[in-house]
């Protein structure tokens, strides 16, 4: 039940974050969604994710606030809003309807099949020596994924440095001279 309330709260804050005119308020509202998500992870018995989500959320908020502060706040003028609203609602309706059909064939909520995960639960500690089975999965059974994950962060740091460097070109084009 508490999950339902949290999710409704998240949807509400998300709508606020999308619709509010002030950029700072928008960023703070999305922070609220993130912290609610962190609580949801705790309720879903995922403490690793809750910690990670919490700290990542803090970092994202700091960066987003510093990036948006003192920047312009353009008026959002939506053209053709009737058409847009109708098409959006139609898309969402179709998407949710088919998702509902497909979801009803999945195992019911709270009773996953766990074909592969059963083995992790049974043998994880004895085979890897790690007590925290999530760590056992990410750093032993699926460590190759984690290599990819570390590489993604590396890529985005290098990419960010590359984008922020100036000047970008060392030689001006000839016809500009």
């Amino acid at each position, binding site marked *: 039940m508490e999950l339902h309330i949290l999710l409704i709260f998240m949807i509400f804050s998300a709508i606020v974050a999308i619709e509010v005119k002030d950029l700072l308020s928008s960023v703070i509202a999305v922070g609220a969604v993130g912290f609610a998500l962190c609580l949801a992870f705790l309720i879903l018995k995922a403490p690793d994710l809750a910690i990670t989500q919490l700290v990542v959320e803090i970092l994202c908020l700091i960066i987003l606030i510093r990036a948006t502060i003192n920047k312009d706040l353009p008026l959002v003028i939506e053209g053709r809003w009737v058409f847009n609203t109708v098409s959006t609602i139609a898309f969402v309706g179709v998407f949710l309807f088919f998702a509902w059909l497909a979801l009803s064939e999945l195992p019911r909520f709270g009773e996953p099949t766990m*074909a*592969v995960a059963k083995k992790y639960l049974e043998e994880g500690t004895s085979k890897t020596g790690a007590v925290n089975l999530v760590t056992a999965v990410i750093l*032993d059974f*699926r460590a190759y994924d984690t290599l990819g994950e570390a*590489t993604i962060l590396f*890529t985005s740091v290098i990419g*960010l440095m590359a984008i922020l460097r100036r000047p*970008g070109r060392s030689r001006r084009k*000839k016809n500009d001279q």
Partner: protein
Amino acid sequence: MDQSNFIPLFVIIPLAAAFLISLLGKFIKWFSDAAICVSSALLLWFSVYAEIALKSSAQGVLIYKVGGWVPPFGICMVLDGLTTLMLIIVNLVSFFVALYSLKYMEQYTDKTKFFTLFSLMVCGMNGVIITGDLFNLYVFLEIASIASYALVAFGTEAEELEASFKYAIMGSIAASFIFIGIAFLYGFTSTLNMADMARVLSLKSQTWVIPMVTVLFLMGFGFKAALVPFHAWLPDAHPSAPAPISAMLSGVLIKTLGVYALIRIFFNILGVTAAYLSILMLLGAVSMIVGVILALSQWDFKRLLAYHSISQIGYVVLGIGLGTPLGILGGLFHLFNHSIFKSLLFLNSGAVDYAAGTRDLKEMGGLAKVMPWTAKTSLIASMSISGVPPFNGFFSKLIIILACIQKGAIAYALCAVIGSILTLASFMKVQRYAFSGELKEKLKGIKEVPWVMRFSMVGLALVCVLGGVMLLPHLRFILDDAVGVLLQGRNYAAVVLDAALK
């Protein structure tokens, strides 16, 4: 196990190169150039070696169990016919492009960051190709995508940043669709290994899960492959990138992340039916026609090429969507050919940009006199892309059209012929305005590009001319193995799991 020990090297080599370049490249001037050359040459060698190793293996598929965990509990790498074909394509193109960018990238600052990102992008593509695990595919797809977002904006001019932002947003939405699709599949099958997933899917009955997942993957990978309703980012992103990166993006990235992942998942995991195939054919035909029509009115050299990428991807998807052995053969062969001649064309456009400093076709003219190498290689590439015999593009287009007729899809065959004619017209325009005619006064002083850039263009042009030999009986096994992998459908599960348990 011994036989397959080299498979992780396809990821380890570019990763190690990327990390070392970013660490040492700042202190040692020549290090980044040397490292990128060595790593791409090694990768090319290993992808040829993979073909040999696969040929000599007993089961026709090599499995590498990462960390020694038996699939589906760990991640495994799968090397089969389709994988080796894709590896050869990616590493061949990236080798020539790496050589080309040694000189070309001197126009930009901070070459070490460029080579780091380039290496990471190659690593991501190789990872996508060799993995046998669905979530791992997603992770490596993101590596390649993030590297490409950053590389599109590498020049940090306003247009480049704008294109990169658009591309990153579209790409992230596509990735989120793929992620939701993977979540659905995981919820249903409770496994992530592609072979195991195919096995479970063929055992459990369902009516709506696979259609839902199909649509999600079609949107996700369709974005990455720039099929027509999802193509809006491509004509901005590809021309904005530096020329070597345009060559990589158009030449191999959209094929690896889009077409390869799409067909691998559709054919080998979800299982294809006539309905899905007809969707693929329709998307392919629409992309083919719309892309080429949009290309006709372009005057920017690189934008024109980018629109042609959409059109040519349409050929590939149409050929594969036919679902017949001949059609798939044509589609895969065209995939190979297109990656060669499209990268060559983008390198040509980069050479023109490097020497003459313009991308506008109206400002060029008579460049054949001052840049003979560029002009000749671009003529070869133009003939290839328009399907003029005896260049490689002719054979693959012919096979696709024949396969259409064989299957009775005359309308699609007509579309393919019309698309080809329009392509020819468009490239006649390029040749006419850029290379032939009178040399303009402003362009009198320009020189041919340096020899490394010429070398990569000539190398790719040679592959274009000789591409047809892939159809000879001795070399045809490369393509036939790849076709066989797709045609086996969900038997992929049995083949891979058997080989993994040995």
